[in-house]
């Protein structure tokens, strides 16, 4: 485990305390249990020495790190069989073969992965290791009692970087929440797609044709869907004022219920609850391409004047947008799906790229906290950019001066693949 995260010391020390207290000093060389020597070691094959057992860090208390000393003379040894039993149990059948380690490999392994012989938290075990010949003949070493028992940790030391980054992020967002609520003026740059929304609704009104709004194909827990529903609220409010028909097909049943609520509420806020058509927001089907078949058919029959595709989309993006363009609609799209953006860009009139979609809900709402959050996100991007810039400079220094300082910087943000 790497521990070179110099930088935000105070927060870290705080976080490390609990982990250090559980991580330290859990290993101990075991004392042989003398009474039970099961087999005479054959002078022909030397037997392994002391077995060391440590508690594994960052687990739920179901793993032990086991290692043993290799015999002085490894000649003729093909592999080592490691046996384990619960301390106190007697008899040959209490022993379970938990690992076979080939002679050329390191004499250590993590015990507890074999589902047939799991390790229980707080249970004391005994180990013994046998040298085996190619034919499987075993020569047992002495029995050792594990000096420790496995226990679960309350903090995962390998996740500290995520914790620090998360903590920093939360701090920045809340800082800007506060700032925004205290009334600090915050600038927001214009986004073309957002400004076009009103114009597009106006066009539908003039033409007397409906507006189609697809809130993405993903579920309610998808951030893109949440952003889309916020925008839907604003769009529906405008539409309620203009009395233009609205069509909102949904693929996810939960999104459907929320969308229905949002639209109903928008009509209420616009002062036109009577104009709300309960059939305007509806569920179609959960199947992706059946959904597209339905929406495409609707587009060619109803010929909406304006299509909104905001939210999460997959391969259907182009099917929807190209059919929409064929039907002659003005189209505004927005998604955080990187793969689908090119298709919206090429076929729609305006496209909100990635984060712009999320930002749009803050733009339309103009709530101080939402704008504060945007500001906080910008601050985070600035931090990321400074990291990348420093990395670039270090990279140049590395090339010129033949040093390795970039590796050091990378290690600060590297998260382990195996946790």
């Amino acid at each position, binding site marked *: 485990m790497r521990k070179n995260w110099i930088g935000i010391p105070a927060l870290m020390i705080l976080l490390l305390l609990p982990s250090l207290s559980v991580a330290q000093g859990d290993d101990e060389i075991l004392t042989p249990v003398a009474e039970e020597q099961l087999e005479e070691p054959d002078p022909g094959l030397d037997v392994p020495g002391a077995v060391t057992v440590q508690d594994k860090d960052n687990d739920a208390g179901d793993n032990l790190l086991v290692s043993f000393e290799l015999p002085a003379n490894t000649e003729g040894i093909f592999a080592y069989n490691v046996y384990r039993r619960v301390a106190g149990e007697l008899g040959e059948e209490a022993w379970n073969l938990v690992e076979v380690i080939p002679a050329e490999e390191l004499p250590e392994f993590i015990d507890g992965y074999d589902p047939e012989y799991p390790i229980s938290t707080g249970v004391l075990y005994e180990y013994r290791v046998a040298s085996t010949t190619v034919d499987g003949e075993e020569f047992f070493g002495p029995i050792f009692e594990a000096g420790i028992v496995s226990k679960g940790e309350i903090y995962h030391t390998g996740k500290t970087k*995520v914790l620090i980054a*998360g903590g920093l*992020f939360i701090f920045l967002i809340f800082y800007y929440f506060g700032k925004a609520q205290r009334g600090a003026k915050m600038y927001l*740059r214009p986004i073309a797609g957002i400004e076009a929304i009103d114009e597009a609704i106006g066009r539908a009104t003039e033409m007397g044709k409906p507006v189609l709004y697809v809130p993405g194909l993903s579920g309610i827990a998808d951030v893109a869907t949440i952003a889309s529903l916020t925008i839907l609220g604003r769009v529906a409010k405008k539409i309620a004022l203009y009395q233009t028909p609205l069509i909102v097909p949904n693929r996810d049943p939960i999104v459907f219920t929320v969308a229905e609520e949002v639209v109903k509420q928008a009509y209420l806020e616009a002062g036109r609850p009577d104009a709300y058509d309960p059939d305007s927001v509806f569920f179609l089907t959960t199947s992706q391409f059946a959904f597209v078949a*339905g929406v495409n058919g609707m587009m060619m029959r109803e010929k909406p004047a304006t299509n909104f595709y905001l939210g999460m989309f997959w391969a259907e993006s182009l099917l929807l947008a190209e059919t929409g363009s064929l039907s002659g609609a003005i189209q505004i799209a927005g998604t955080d799906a990187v793969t689908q953006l*090119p298709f919206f860009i090429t076929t729609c009139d305006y496209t909100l790229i990635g984060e712009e979609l999320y930002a749009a809900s803050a733009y339309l709402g103009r709530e101080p906290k939402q704008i504060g959050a945007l500001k906080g996100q*910008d601050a985070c991007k600035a931090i990321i*950019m400074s990291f990348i810039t420093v*990395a670039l400079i270090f990279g140049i220094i590395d090339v010129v001066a033949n040093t390795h300082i970039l590796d050091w*910087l990378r290690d600060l943000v590297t998260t382990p693949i195996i946790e």
Partner: protein
Amino acid sequence: MYETIGIWVGALFTLAIYSFLYKENPIYRLAEHLVVGISAGYGMAITYQITVKPRLIDPLLSGDHWILLIPGILGILYITRFIPRISWLSRYPIGFYMGTSMGVYFPLTMKANVLRQLEGAMVPLYQSGMAWYEVTGNIIMILGTLAALIYFFFSKPHKGLFFGTGSKIGIWVIMVGFGATFGFTVMGRISLLIGRIQYLLGDWLHVIE
């Protein structure tokens, strides 16, 4: 026989969908409505089969998993939406789902979208054995990432040397990326058509192997 009829039915519906390329027509309309109904009905049947029955009903009937009543009741609260007076109860399961999902995603997003990407952007410019275009590529990648990030700054006007030029380069980089993705995708889309042609000409008509 079963398979043969199946392939014929499949082929006819395939043609029904392709007829949409010419224009919207009653055959397409029928296929469209059918597939909506079938897929929604299929969704219901399969959800009962692989979720509700094995995960809720069977364990409850077996008698010793009473704790599952909690998700069961939360689930049933959705259905209060049909009763306007207590429809607000449906917010409880939505709340549970929203809250827990947001919590699960938070650290994972931090790791995958932020830390991993940041790590990926910190590449050594040159290592022995790298060709010149790889080195240039690395430099372009780093500078491109920076520029595109500038484009996503919302709280600063895109004017001046840093934010103005930066965001302009940023949108260029983004467009190059989009063009590449588009070009790259063409292949996959044609493959889908190849799959259908193999079905029509091979499985159905047997004119190709």
